[in-house]
């Protein structure tokens, strides 16, 4: 993969050479302020608290319809999701293995000739299913901004420096106990244009597979104590505080390595499974040597 990254860096996908303050143009007078957005966020939060008091079940997933995140307004289904019992293909997951992912891809600090700038961190945890069983031998993908809050992406116009030694993408295959571990750099917060002075809390994007395709999820891991949480319409798409807390890593000194890197722990729980035990037994364990299942 390091070769691929070098190619990517040289391709047109890479942002153009730094143009300091190129994106820092005077903003439209009519643009909405953080106060406007915070009022909307708080009103939705208060309505949710009242619903809980009135006996509503806690919400565990983000709302698809969350107007403070302006890009969601035309992109959320207006009809209820249709309940479906998953059928054959949906009860299995694509198989990934060490043919797909090199062991070194889990270290985001060694993909170039030099050391990336910023605070070196270890992010480690387990991928579990809803019954607490480890999801073994599955693909985990991450991507993130560099320590200055800049992505290697042509659409990222934030006038913060690109780090030539940091691409910000990693992959690994979970161990037999569902564990994953990445070495990376703590990402910076960055501005976006949802409203005037909108800043995303520092986060790492995570993409996860389970043992069934119905468990497929992409999410974001945050860092504890971020002051931007109450202001961020994306984090706030999850209206329940307990549910939000599930996206926040824990600082874990036992993961910290002396003279090297700070450690954070974050476990991920997938939905389900829906497949019955008998089907699981018949299916066996997915992995490198697996064969075809089904008829």
């Amino acid at each position, binding site marked *: 993969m390091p070769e691929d990254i070098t190619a990517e860096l040289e391709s047109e996908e890479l942002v153009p050479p730094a143009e300091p303050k190129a994106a820092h143009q005077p903003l439209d007078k009519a643009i909405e302020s953080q106060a406007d957005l915070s009022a909307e966020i708080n009103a939705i939060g208060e309505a949710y608290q009242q619903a809980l008091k009135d006996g509503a079940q806690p919400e565990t997933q983000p709302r698809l319809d969350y107007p403070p995140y302006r890009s969601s307004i035309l992109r959320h289904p207006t009809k209820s999701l249709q309940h479906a019992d998953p059928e054959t293909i949906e009860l299995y997951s694509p*198989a990934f293995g060490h043919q797909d992912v090199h062991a070194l891809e889990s270290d985001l600090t060694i993909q170039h000739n030099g050391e990336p700038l910023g605070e070196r961190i270890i992010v480690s945890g387990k991928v579990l299913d809803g019954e607490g069983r480890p999801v073994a031998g599955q693909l985990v993908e991450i991507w993130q901004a560099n320590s200055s809050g800049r992505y290697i992406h042509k659409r990222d116009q934030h006038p913060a420096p690109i780090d030539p030694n940091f691409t910000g993408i990693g992959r690994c295959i979970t161990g037999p106990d569902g564990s994953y571990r990445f070495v990376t750099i703590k990402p910076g917060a960055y501005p976006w244009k949802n409203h005037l002075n909108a800043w995303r809390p520092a986060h790492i994007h995570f993409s996860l597979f389970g043992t069934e395709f119905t468990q497929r999820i992409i999410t974001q891991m945050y860092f504890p104590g971020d002051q931007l949480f109450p202001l961020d319409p994306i984090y706030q798409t999850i209206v329940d505080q307990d549910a939000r807390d599930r996206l926040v890593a824990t600082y874990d000194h036992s993961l910290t390595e002396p003279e090297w890197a700070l450690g954070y722990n974050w476990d991920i729980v997938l939905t389900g499974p829906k497949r019955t035990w008998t089907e699981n037994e018949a299916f066996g364990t997915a992995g490198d040597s697996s064969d075809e299942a089904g008829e």
Partner: protein
Amino acid sequence: MNTKLVPTPGQTVGPFYGYALPFEKDNELLAPGSPGSIRLQGTVYDGAGHTVPDAILEIWQPDAKGNVVQRTGSLVRDGYTFTGWGRGAVGNSGVFTFTTVNPGPTKPGAAPFISVALFARGLTNRLFTRIYLPEDAEALAKDPLLSSLDPERRKTLIARRDPDGGLTWDIRLQGEGETVFLDFQ
């Protein structure tokens, strides 16, 4: 007895997945032009009818005989192994393209379909849906999901067969002709 854990919430894929999620031949479950291969193509639209230029789809399907394949190698394709899984980001015009095979029925009489997971900037969580093949009317009529839908909504899950043998299937996130999205929980 199992203790149920509460699942971790999803979050939007955001706008900056473009250098992270796509990989070489990600949308080629088979090499284009190889025997039995078909093109699966469609466009993603938002609630105003505009194309969505920053969505990414994954498809997961049985092989042409209806077998669920459990082979590794999707991320580093060898050109011969059909893994059943692919990923395709839309282009600037909102169009996605895959090269794949017509999925077979996973059991006799079942309506063949491709499972889809959809991610996009502005979409706060992934959406699941299905792409059914249009041919087997009897199987489609008996399908548990399709038969639970009214006819207008049902149509959104059935692909159109093109003269060249390919499949066309569009996604409408919102509004008229809104695609049926699924909840498995």
